[in-house]
């Protein structure tokens, strides 16, 4: 079995690219972890679709205020400088290009930047939330994900087979094995785990990985 990053480590790596004073939206679930790994000295401001700017970590158990929740309906706290607003203003922030970064999960990412992350097909109850708004709103849309599915199939594909969330919207993917940019409709490898050969990485990636310049080692702390 191939060595790979934990979800915490992927989240840590994604957090390193968030610049100081950035306005950031983190998708429900796994992407929420990114907030924990803000580099010291950099202040990101987190936006949640349901109407809070600059919320902080969860409260202690038993201290929850259920009017103070994030998009995943988890209790949060406030930081100094926070603001409340209604849903139309919240999505004006999203759609109007005011967020610097959105970091989302993925079922599939295609080499042209297409993202599928809301529906696994006709079974079950479909639910989309704010994902389709985020992918066409934030200045930079990044994905964090395991490099492959639980069945070991590639998630970085030539064309998405699952229902799309957005067209040509993702520009960077942080996976359990690599950091990959999407440029002009192609995957460009930026970083990979030190012990991993390009051939091994390509073997678990459906679309071709281009190398343009040097590929750095993907190094993260133990987390």
């Amino acid at each position: 079995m191939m060595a790979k990053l934990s979800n915490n480590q992927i989240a840590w790596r994604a957090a390193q690219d968030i610049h100081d004073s950035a306005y950031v939206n983190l998708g429900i679930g796994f992407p929420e972890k990114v907030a924990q790994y803000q580099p010291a000295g950099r202040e990101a401001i987190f936006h949640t679709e349901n109407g809070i700017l600059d919320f902080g970590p969860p409260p202690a158990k038993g201290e929850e205020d259920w009017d103070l929740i994030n998009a995943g309906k988890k209790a949060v706290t406030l930081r100094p400088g926070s603001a409340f607003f209604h849903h139309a203003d919240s999505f004006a922030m999203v759609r109007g290009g005011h967020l610097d970064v959105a970091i989302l999960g993925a079922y599939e990412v295609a080499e042209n930047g297409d993202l599928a992350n809301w529906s696994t097909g006709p079974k079950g109850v479909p639910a989309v939330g704010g994902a389709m708004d985020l992918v066409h709103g934030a200045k930079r849309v990044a994905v964090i994900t395991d490099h492959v599915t639980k069945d070991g199939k590639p998630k970085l594909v030539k064309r998405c087979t699952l229902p799309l969330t957005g067209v040509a919207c993702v520009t960077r993917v942080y996976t359990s094995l690599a950091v990959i940019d999407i440029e002009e409709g192609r995957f460009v490898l930026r970083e990979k785990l030190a012990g991993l050969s390009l051939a091994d990485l390509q073997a678990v990636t459906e679309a071709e990985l281009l190398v343009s310049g040097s590929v750095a080692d993907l190094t993260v702390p133990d987390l």
Partner: protein
Amino acid sequence: MDKTAADLATAVAGIEDGMTVMIGGFGGAGSPIELIHALIDRFLATGKPSGLTVINNNAGNGHVGLAALIEAGMVRKLICSFPRSADPVVFTELYQAGRIELELVPQGTLAERIRAGGAGIPAFYTPTSFGTDLAKGKPVEEFEGRSYVRERWLKADVALVKAEAADTHGNLTYRAAARNFNPLMCMAAAETVVQASRIVPAGGIDPEIVITPGIFVQKVVAVPHPQQEEDLNLANAIYPEVA
């Protein structure tokens, strides 16, 4: 001018069979549980209203509030962005049995369609959902080299809204993230019915901090200690309680 309704039953008396009802809240935050339960009470007593189209971000949780309204069989169709969550069993079962209709709308588009309904904007263009299944059948137009989907306004016969403070003119404030869809729904309904934790005389809310001006509100009813959906669900509450 005094928009205060005597009680919850009076407040929801205007909702008739087949109406479209917007219900505020995002999950439990801002969900007008007491108004919803008053509507269920009326249905249990009189058999009306039923066949409702409900607009909410979610599909309810557990067996209280919106989930209880659906469970009572009063809802024909749901327009929402996220009917999946921790415990949406009630909706899921009816949906899979083909007994409730679902119109799935991206969350920002849902918010903007409601605002458009309130603001007299019959249609607008958004980049959201372009190229996806949710844009199927909708007109697409290119502006400055980028493609956008045309979306229509949403309006309702009635909106059920939860506020923090109301004055007798219907000016409202909200509490924290319980604001969410509530101010938009106030704008988009022919009759907006508000439950507020307190009702103060006109002049009792600083005009600078009014979030919903009274022109968007028709009825207010005092619910001093509103229940929270999460607390009810943690206690495994079922509405109405079976004797």
